[in-house]
């Protein structure tokens, strides 16, 4: 579902971390760890196709990406946001499904309020509802625990577990472990210096 060969993300011509090689298969839940500034977000953005400055190569299925920015339109209600997102994925628009997802995420009460009037955690939950609606099998999540209360954190663990059980895969950057049964861990660190060619040139095969 996702394979990385000696992948190194670059910022300002500098490699951020030691080359990463890993194969993520269906059913895998990979916890992406690393100190602040290790390059987790950048790696996820790269895998999502939002960051093209890297060396090495990767190959990934269509993915669902959840960055630091939630991607909810503050003017629209959670329901409308879900409808829009389903449209992006060329899915049919079925209100019931959306309502179920919101209920599961615990923000049904706010289904008809503009998202800008939701609290931080409530917005996070709406984003989670979007994962439930999505048909993508590879989830790329950047610190999904942020702003979630205790019940929300448990819910997140459940949702991820189920998704993997159904043959999906999750790569999830986080600082506090997620309560998922058999997960793998990918730690980002920057030790060696030869990954840091610093010549500012792109790799010869941007493989795009």
């Amino acid at each position, binding site marked *: 579902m996702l394979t990385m060969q000696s992948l190194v993300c670059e910022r300002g011509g500098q490699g951020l971390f030691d080359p990463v090689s890993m194969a993520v298969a269906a059913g895998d839940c990979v916890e992406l760890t690393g100190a602040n500034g290790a390059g987790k977000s950048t790696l996820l953005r790269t895998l999502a196709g939002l960051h093209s400055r890297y060396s090495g190569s990767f190959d990934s299925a269509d993915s669902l*990406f959840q960055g630091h920015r939630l991607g909810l339109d503050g003017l629209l209600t959670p329901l*409308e946001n879900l409808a829009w997102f389903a449209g992006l994925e060329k899915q049919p628009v079925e209100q019931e499904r959306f309502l179920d997802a919101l209920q599961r995420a615990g923000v049904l009460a706010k289904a008809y309020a503009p998202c800008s009037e939701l609290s931080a955690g409530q917005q996070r939950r709406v984003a989670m509802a979007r994962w439930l609606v999505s048909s993508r099998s590879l989830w790329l999540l950047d610190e999904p625990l942020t702003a979630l209360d205790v019940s929300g954190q448990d819910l997140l663990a459940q949702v991820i577990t189920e998704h993997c059980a159904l043959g999906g895969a999750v790569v999830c950057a986080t600082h506090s472990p997620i309560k998922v049964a058999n997960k793998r861990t990918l730690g980002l660190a920057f030790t060696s210096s030869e990954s840091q060619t610093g010549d500012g040139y792109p790799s010869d095969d941007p493989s795009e």
Partner: protein
Amino acid sequence: MKALLRREWLIVLRAKGAVINPVAFLLLSTLIFVIAAPDAVGSQAVPGILWTLVLLTQLLALDGMYRRDFDSGVLEQTLVTAQVPFVAILTRIFMQWLSAGFIITILGPGLGLMLGLPAHVAGAVALSMLIGTPALSLLGSIGASVTVGFSRGGVVLALLVLPLFLPTLIFGTGLVEAALSGGNLMPQIYALSLISLVALAIAPFATLAGLKISLEMQ
């Protein structure tokens, strides 16, 4: 596609600003102009004045074109999720045109009268704007996509797109002037349509490239 259009439509409804305001701005600036330069009213210069104001209105409306979606992360989601981002981009451009260029087209004749244009050229004014403003939205979208990542996009945007707007301005003005002098309108009509078509051909790709660049700035 339908869902995308629906969202755009809802946003227009919610942020009424987007729709009502280009109208109001155009009216106000015309008014200001009439107040500040009454001698220009009814003069040879009116078609040019009118089109200048249209340009500036478009410019002001352009700034917010992608900003909200960029800040909220909606743009990320669109580029990551959509199979063909072009559809989404074209939808956005279309709505931008509806909420600016189209309204301008409707207002145009009225403003023309306000500025002392004879009634018989009202049609020409509307026509020039109808086939001219799409080019503004399309080319403008390119500039907006590249500058959306900037803290102070507004004026870089102006710098980038105003030169690109120039041909539209000239032919648009020319069309109205030709109508005034009872000349042949065809050349200007062809030219304007050509420009809009060229813009239509390059805008989606250039915009996509621009948005990708802006998203990499994060």
